[in-house]
């Protein structure tokens, strides 16, 4: 199995564009939901084989993160996560739901559900955008909230058996809410072979 992949600038731009389209949809939904001006951006993305990423991040990525994960199956299989560090997670919930009155130390099942909803909206929108574009059919598992390290978020248990052959799309995600910018990350893990098919689909469409 070839565990490497070459992505052209065009494909990279297309991937970033589709992620941002999905983010735009997610932002619209959040705006409607919360009556709050929310802007979501994914200015930069990296596409890295999971194995490489794990090697490069042997000592990094050990801080506990709030993660909302949704596994998906269909034409492509993998999982998608939205992760925040604990402080950012608390700030985000506080900004989105001011009456929640939480602090970093008070993430609990209720506020975790709020984060789950936010992650759910983003993942549904982003993955829906990708699926629509590629005419893929995806079935999602319900969102799953957990506190994990970034390494574990990448090396998702649902997908562990295939991690050697997987690739991760990592996008820094900026939430602009009420003049405040909060950094999160979206992680989408695919099988490399499936990403190749996906990229080929775009190339064909472009051609």
């Amino acid at each position, binding site marked *: 199995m070839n565990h490497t992949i070459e992505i052209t600038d065009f494909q990279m731009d297309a991937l970033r564009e589709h992620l941002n389209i999905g983010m735009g949809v997610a932002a619209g*939904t959040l705006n*409607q939901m919360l009556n709050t001006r929310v802007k979501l951006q994914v200015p930069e993305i990296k596409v890295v084989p999971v194995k490489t990423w794990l090697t490069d991040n042997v000592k990094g990525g050990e801080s506990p993160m709030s993660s909302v994960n949704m596994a998906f199956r269909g034409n492509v299989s993998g999982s998608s996560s939205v992760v925040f560090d604990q402080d950012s997670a608390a700030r985000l919930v506080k900004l989105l739901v001011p009456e929640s009155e939480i602090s970093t130390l008070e993430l609990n099942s*209720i506020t975790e559900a709020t984060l789950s909803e936010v992650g759910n909206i983003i993942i549904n929108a982003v993955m829906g955008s990708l699926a629509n574009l590629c005419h893929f059919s995806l079935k*999602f598992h319900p969102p799953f909230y957990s506190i994990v390290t970034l390494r574990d978020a990448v090396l998702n248990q649902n997908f562990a058996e295939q991690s050697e052959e997987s690739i991760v799309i990592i996008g820094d995600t900026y939430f602009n809410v009420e003049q405040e910018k909060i950094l999160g990350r979206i992680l989408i893990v695919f099988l490399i072979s499936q990403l190749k098919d996906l990229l080929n689909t775009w190339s064909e469409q472009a051609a």
Partner: protein
Amino acid sequence: MNSDSKNFQWFDCLPHGYCVIDADWHFVFWNATLERWSHIERSQILGRKLTEVFEVFKQTRYKTRITQALQSGAPTVFSSLIHKHLMPFPLDNDKHQIHQYYVTGIVTEAGERFAIITVEDVTGTTELLHNYRNICSQLRFEEQQAKDLAKAKEQFFAYMSHEIRTLLNGIIGSASLLQQADLKENDREFVSTIVGSGDALLKIIHSILDYTKLEAGALDIHEESFDLRLLVDEVVLLFAENARRKNILLSNVVDQLIPSRLAGDSLRIRQVLSNLLSNAIKFTEKGEVQLRVSRVSDESGSHLLRFDVVDTGPGIPEHAKVQLFQPFKQLVRDRATGTGLGLAISRNLARLMGGDCGVESSLGHGSVFWFSCRVQWEPVANYPLRPVYDQTQVSILTKDTLLLTRLRDILILRGVQSVEWADSVEALANMTQGLCIITEDFFASLSKLAGQALLKKLRESRTSVLLVGMQVHNAHESETFVSTYQLPLRQASFYRTLELVTAPLFGQTTPSLPAPAHDKDVQQSSLHILVADDNLLNQKVITTMLKRLGHQCDVVSTGRAAVQACQAYDYDLVFMDCWMPDLDGIEATSRIRGFSSVTIIALTANATPDEQQRCFEAGMNDFMSKPIKMDLLSDIVARHLPAKKVAC
């Protein structure tokens, strides 16, 4: 129930609420849990549209996401914090259940699309978390408050310690030097009071710094023999100037049945009395403050004394009394110059001494702050109970009825009868030979000629005169038959004065003073000493003492100047204040150690073990706590005499 409904009947077995809508949003299933929660029976809801039963779903934000869930099958979460009551199911307490919703789209084999709505009741969890959060917030608030308070106290104590010790150094040092000068008897008494009071104050400051120990119940009571009447006099004298400034009559009276020699913690009694008197004078604008000491009860070999501080101040409203004994509380902020600890400390100390502390007061009728404590009667030297002036007729010339009352009270306790006159002519015509007490206000009301005539006639009739007032000191020193007594009216002191005045008056001389205590120290070899201290009064005190010990002093006011001086001269000793502007003593010492091994002795008003440690770590050789005492200074200089000087 239609056929669709039958397909979902197994949802009846689950504890959560489940309902199913078809692609047109009509209910096709409503499980038993939802029936129980909503009181809507399945038969009433099946076939109706979701938006018809729960209108909130008409909103775009829900329409969009549920439509998406129906079409794509992507699970969709509606969290409780954001949505709460999309399906408002009532509770018994007029509130509604709090829900979390999950909408999942499914497609049957026949290609029909449905959305399963899972309704999770999180009311209990939410309330539990809400309560938990409230408790946590409260605990954090209280913890922070406790930390803030502890920190504020610590800083306050450290600051107060330093400030008070610095000032006391000036007071006690100056007074100690003054004690060695030739003084008249009266002046010597005042200087002794300053030194005695300063020492007592210093001890009290140590106690205040141990306030946390008191709160923790770790403060001990030290029983020792003391003279109650002397103590009471001394405490009252402490407040003479305050009372004089406000023209308040300050006096004390001790029950004749209480012996003078007692065993108890005199320091703590003095501390509590000082606090109560200080408050009383602070809040009294006219009239008087009187300290009364009485015996309450005897029990198992000990005696309960009660000290009443009676004032004619404004009184205290009932609701404010409870706050009085709480630490850091002060009723009148604009006059709140104290620490706010006084009454709390007083009550704790009184209780430690087997008594209590309280207040009796009502608005407009003054206050009585009292405290009680247990003491032991000393077996010897009981106070003489017999009247000693029973044959003496005392005339009192005064216009001050309040002072007259207190004088009469105090005289009668010793069996002295008094006759009062408000008019000098009438008094001269009728008074018999003996003692005549003239109050300051009476004398001031006379013209100069009338005053002189009065004194002349009294001298001719061989009547001893005692002039009593707040500022009578030395006023009539040319008249040798006129004695003076300066208020406050201290019982024991007044009796001593009466004894002196009624004795033959002429020919007495002032007792000679003892030689300075440290003349021997002047024999020490003369050293060249540098004193680094930013406080002018402290500079003056220590240099005067050192010069008196025969040494030569240079003085600087900053740490930087001390370093420069040590570079310029080869000093025998350096006294280094720790807290100085520009460069503190610690830093200055470190720098001096870079080029000199001169003996450096720390001078500090912050006498904590930590401070000592800092001094030694910086390279200082010894440590001297302010206020500076002559004997201690002499000892420490002797201890660090350079070898060459000792050899001389």
